[in-house]
């Protein structure tokens, strides 16, 4: 190993740290959109801890917001996949309840919510 190898390792580590910090910076969602068959039925502010109820195809879907994260608490489906998924809080993530046709999305456009 010579000097240039060490320089290379330092450069790569620097880029890695940059990319990590960039992804941490981007990944804070502030709102969640709830869709039922592509129709926006609810917009949730993630800064308020609260429980919401929406109507899915198989009955009520209970959604809980806690510490800027969101999860599905209760729903009626064969495998309960979306309530087993647990909390999500990063933009770009989503919870999809296929039997209920309910989709919870955390959008990337944080600027819109900061203005309002």
């Amino acid at each position: 190993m010579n000097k240039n190898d060490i320089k290379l390792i330092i450069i790569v580590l620097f880029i890695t740290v940059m990319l990590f910090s960039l992804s941490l910076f981007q990944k804070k969602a502030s709102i969640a959109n709830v869709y039922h068959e592509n129709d926006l039925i609810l917009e949730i502010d993630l800064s308020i801890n609260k429980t919401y109820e929406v109507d899915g195809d198989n009955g009520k879907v209970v959604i809980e917001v806690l510490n800027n994260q969101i999860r599905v608490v209760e729903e009626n489906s064969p495998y309960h996949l979306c309530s087993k998924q647990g909390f999500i809080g990063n933009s770009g993530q989503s919870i999809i309840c296929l039997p209920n046709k309910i989709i919870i999305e955390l959008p990337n456009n944080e600027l819109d919510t900061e203005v309002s």
Partner: protein
Amino acid sequence: MKKFTRLSMLLALSVALNVIEASLPLFNGYIPGLKLGLANIVTLFIIYKFSLKDAFYVGILRVFLVGILRTGLFSTTFFFSLSGVLLSIACMYLAKNLFKLSIIGVSIIGSIAHSIGQIITSILLLQMTSMIYYLPWLLLFSIPTGILVGIICKQLVKFYDEVLSFE
């Protein structure tokens, strides 16, 4: 003829290393695309002791052989490996000749290029843009795996120079 035999043996060795590596449960599953890259030892060695053309021949043949043996020809894994190998050979050759890097540095460059090649293919072929989020992880791990491959290859080159060239 001697060169041809040696390259054939190296090809067999690289296929064997690839298969051994796939059976190691070391990192399986946590981060897609993460592996030690032991087969890169052979590629790197050929770049140093033979030529760029030979490295491409052996690299491409290895991907085809591993495809037949393990992953399946023209599967997604096949195209991932192919793009990774082609980009890493090109980048290692350039790094060796342009920068004053030792074999370890060149090996790290190869490891990084392999990751980037696979990510580019996954985005172009499968439209999986979310793969880009794994880039920092792959970059981070390419340093230790690159150093490991580099050290092994350095010993191999030393051994080759001392023992085999006196035949």
